[in-house]
Every structure is written in C-alpha cells, then in structure tokens.
C-alpha cells in the first residue's frame, strides 16, 4: 500500500507512456522528457503562487497585521488577482534601451532558474533529469544567472539598473565561492557528483531515531548553515537584498521592467530560492528520506516537500526579522568569514572520514571547527576598531 502510494507518480507516467508503446524510441524519449517538464513546471509554478501569498500572510503575522485577506477564503486567490494584474499591465520599454538585450534578460533568467530544478531528486525514483554530474550542472546553470542580471541592467540603459546589476553580480560572484565550496565535503564523503547518489548515501538510522543525514555531523551542520546563508545571498533576499534596495536604487536591475517581464523576474527569484533550498535538502537534510525509521511509510515526496517548506519558512522568517546589511559588510563577511569557514568544513569532513566516521570522528571534526571559529572570531573582532570617526569630506 505505502509502496504504491510512494511510486504513484512514476506509475502515472508509465501509464501515460504506455499509450505510445508502438511509437519509435526517440518519440517516447521526447514524450517522457515533456511529461517531466510539465510536472516540474506545474508543481513549482503552483508552489510559487502559493508562497507569494503565504509569504505576505506570514510577514503580516510577524508584523502584527492581517496581510492579504480580500480575494477568496483567507486571501488565497490573491496570486490569481496578481497574475491577471501583471498580464494586462502595459509593457513599457525605455526609448533608449537596448531592445533585444532588454527583452532577452527575463527569458534567460527564468530559463536558468527552471533548468536548475531539473537535477533535484524529489522522491524515490523521482529525479526529472538524472545525470552523472548533477551538482556541477546546477552550478553551471546557476552561474549564467549573472549574465542575465547584467543583461537586464545594461539593456535598460538606466543608472539605477546598472548600479543594481553591478551590486547583484558582485555579491553573487563573492558568495558563489562559499556556496560551491560547502558542497565539496559532501561530494568528497559520498564520492559522487550525482544528487541521487548523495541522497542514497544518507540512508539509514542510528538506534532507529537518528538519521544519517550529513547535517547531523559537525562539518555537515556548519556546511549547511554556510550553504543556507550563501543561498540567501544568491537569491538576493533580505538581509542581503542591496541589489534591489528600494530606498536606494528603486528596484535595481528590474527598475525598467513592467508588467509581465517584471513578474518573470519575480518568478525567477522565487524559483531560484526553491532550487537552492531543494539542493540544500538534497545535500544536507537527507533528500527524501524520512527523519525516523518508523515514519518511512509516508511517501518520500511528502518528506522532500516538507523539508523544503521548512527551509522556505526560514527564508520568510529571516526576511521578517533582519534589517538590510551594507554592501561592504556583505563583502567582508563573504571573504573574511564564509570562505575560511567553508575551507575548514572540507578539513573537518576529512578528519571525520579518517577518524572512522564514528563518535571519535564526530568529536574531532567538532574540535577542528570550533578551533577555527574561535580564531576567526578573535581576528575579525571589530569592537575595538570603532575608535574615532574621521570625516574626509565634511570638514
């Protein structure tokens, strides 16, 4: 029973493909890919609509107000109203914009965001695009986002757009480094770049209650936190939303976009957030595995999307809690703290591996991490540096 529920989507796909059993091989292959793509888009666009209203509701709750509550029950149809509004808005292109580049930027940014979703295992046998170098694919596709942001900023021919794009690219390049390096320990411990192998390596439980997820090891927990913070920066969300800080540069690289193109940027940002969170779940939180041995009867995709929802809630929580950081603080944090800690995670993972992956390894890797953390905290202590303020221009 539980097995058939677990594999219900796989069965459905096989049933759909059985209609084509007499067709040539390439047609079946294309149809199979199309089914995967349709399912992916359906699920994540629905999730996007849902999260756009839930985010406003949760933020409202945190700020002691109601949030959207006019359209439908509890305001749940708000995304429909938003969508209609965005669709029928006038599309304005600046007269001196670079028309082609301006037009292509939202398409490219949405395409790369959606492509990155393809490699994540959503459940048992449920990876839409299973390739050997899946993790590498994710980051290769993600790195083209910078080009799209640049195209948006430059194509708009507006100084706010350009400044926003430069800020976005600067922080994305800086945080791509810790983001990628924190995946190294996982890849090294598993010995494979494929997301399916990484999820399979996190199977099993100690005493039936402690899952063998990488987040339960010291290096895994540290890497997960670093990965999560870098993901926050990569998706340009508060407290790292200087690229679109509205009090400074209107809306950054999206200033000159209106109507549906603006909605596309908005969607790409959220889908990028889903992708990063999905990868974090895959790498550190055991993918679709259940947290306790006794709960394995619940279908695997429920666990995956449950973990994803928790991460998304933390994203919203952080947005409702923390103020915006300055760009120099973001940069200093990336290069002086995140990067050394990310490298330390690799060493800690190696220590864990060579100390036998048991309790001894657990303690040794914790010791390595604590040591580096304490040294970094002493070195980066800024308290004594706020002595006298000098005014260079205001005297």
């Amino acid at each position, binding site marked *: 029973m539980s097995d058939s529920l677990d594999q219900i989507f796989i069965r459905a796909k096989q049933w759909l493909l059985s209609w084509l059993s007499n067709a040539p091989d390439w047609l079946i292959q294309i149809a199979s890919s199309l089914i995967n793509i349709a399912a992916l888009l359906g699920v994540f666009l629905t999730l996007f609509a849902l999260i756009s209203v839930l985010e406003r509701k949760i933020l409202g709750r945190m700020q002691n107000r109601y949030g959207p509550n006019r359209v439908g029950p509890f305001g749940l149809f708000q995304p429909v109203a938003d969508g209609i509004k965005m669709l029928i808005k006038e599309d304005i292109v600046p007269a001196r914009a670079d028309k082609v*580049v301006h037009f292509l930027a939202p398409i490219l940014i949405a395409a790369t965001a959606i492509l990155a979703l393809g490699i994540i295992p959503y459940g048992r046998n449920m990876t839409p695009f299973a390739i050997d*170098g899946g993790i590498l694919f994710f980051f*290769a*596709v993600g790195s083209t986002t910078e080009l799209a942001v*640049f195209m948006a900023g430059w194509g708009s021919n507006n100084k706010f757009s350009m400044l926003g794009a*430069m800020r976005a690219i600067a922080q994305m390049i800086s945080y791509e480094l810790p983001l990628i390096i924190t995946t190294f320990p996982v890849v090294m411990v598993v010995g*494979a770049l494929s997301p399916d192998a990484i999820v399979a390596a996190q199977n099993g439980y100690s005493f039936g209650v402690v899952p063998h997820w990488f987040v339960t090891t010291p290096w895994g927990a540290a890497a997960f936190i670093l990965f999560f913070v870098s993901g926050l920066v990569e998706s340009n969300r508060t407290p790292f939303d200087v690229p679109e800080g509205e009090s400074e540069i209107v809306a950054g690289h999206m200033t000159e976009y209106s109507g549906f193109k603006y909605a596309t940027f908005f969607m790409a940002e959220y889908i990028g957030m889903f992708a990063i969170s999905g990868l974090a779940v895959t790498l550190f939180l055991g993918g679709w595995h259940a947290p306790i041995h006794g709960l394995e009867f619940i279908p695997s995709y429920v666990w995956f999307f449950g973990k994803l929802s928790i991460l998304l809630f933390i994203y919203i929580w952080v947005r409702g809690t923390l103020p915006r950081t300055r760009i120099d603080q973001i940069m200093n944090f990336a290069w002086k703290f995140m990067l050394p800690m990310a490298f330390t995670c690799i060493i800690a993972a190696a220590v864990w591996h060579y100390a036998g992956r048991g309790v001894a390894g657990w303690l040794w890797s914790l010791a390595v991490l604590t040591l580096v953390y304490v040294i970094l905290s002493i070195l980066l202590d800024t308290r004594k540096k706020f002595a006298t303020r000098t005014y260079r221009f205001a005297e």
Partner: protein
Amino acid sequence: MNSAAFVVIAILTLAAALAAASLPKLIHAALNFAVAFIGVAAFFFLLGAEFVGLVQVFVYVGAVAVLIVFTILLTRRDVQDTGKLSWGGAIIAIAVFGGLLWAIRKTPALSIAAPQIEALTVKRIGGVLMTDYVWPLQCVGLLLTAALIGALILVMEDREEG
C-alpha cells in the same frame, strides 16, 4: 539524429562567433561570445563528454564571459566600431586559421579510427587527476594562487598616501 544536431549546433556556434567578431557594439559582441561558448559546450555533450561540457559552461560562460562584460563595463560605454576592416588583424587571423588547418590535416590521428572507449565518468577523471596528473594539478594550483595574490596586490589601496 546526432548528425542533424551537429549541423544545428555548428551553425549556431559559428553564427554566434561571427556575430561576436563583427557586431559594432562591444556588449553585443561579448554576449554573442557567451553564446558561442555554450555552443562549444553543446559539442562536448554531443560527444558524451558530459563533465567537460559542464565545466565549459561553468568556467567560460559563468566566469570568463562575466569577466569580459565587467571589463567592458568598467572601461568606456560608448566605444563603437568604426566599421573599417583592420587589415593587419585580418591577415593574422587568416594566418592562424591556415596554420591550425594545416596542423590538423597533417595529424596522423585523423586517419586512425576512434577506439571504442568506455564512457568517461566524473569519477575516472577525478581518479586520474589525483594519481597520474597530481603534480601538474598542484603546479596549476600554485600558479593560480600566485596570480590571485598578484591581482590583490595590484588593486590594494595605499593606506599611507590616502
């Protein structure tokens, strides 16, 4: 099906490369350059070299193209091609192309049928890099670190003067 894909990718890549060489605006040229890089990556995928293709996208589109675009951005915005053909450049380009063509046609490897090798996995590449080629790898790493530190020293502000 593979030969049809080859032709389509080849046309796209060559068109993008040609556009990169001939478009008057520098930014358009740089973006087309990125498209040409993606085309080359597509060739690697077609040949079954998945890892190399992904690294091609990762390094060339994600890093080199962004670097070029940034360089254009930080220099001058209104640089436009005057439309005149630079004959010296054309001669050098033709000479390099001719030399490469000659060298490729002379290679004895072309006449040998490609041996059937097992698919190149990421794992095998990693294993070979860490055993047979560990010293070249370390040397490259040292070189890149030196370049990184050199770049940092070049852009570092002089605190005393300011």
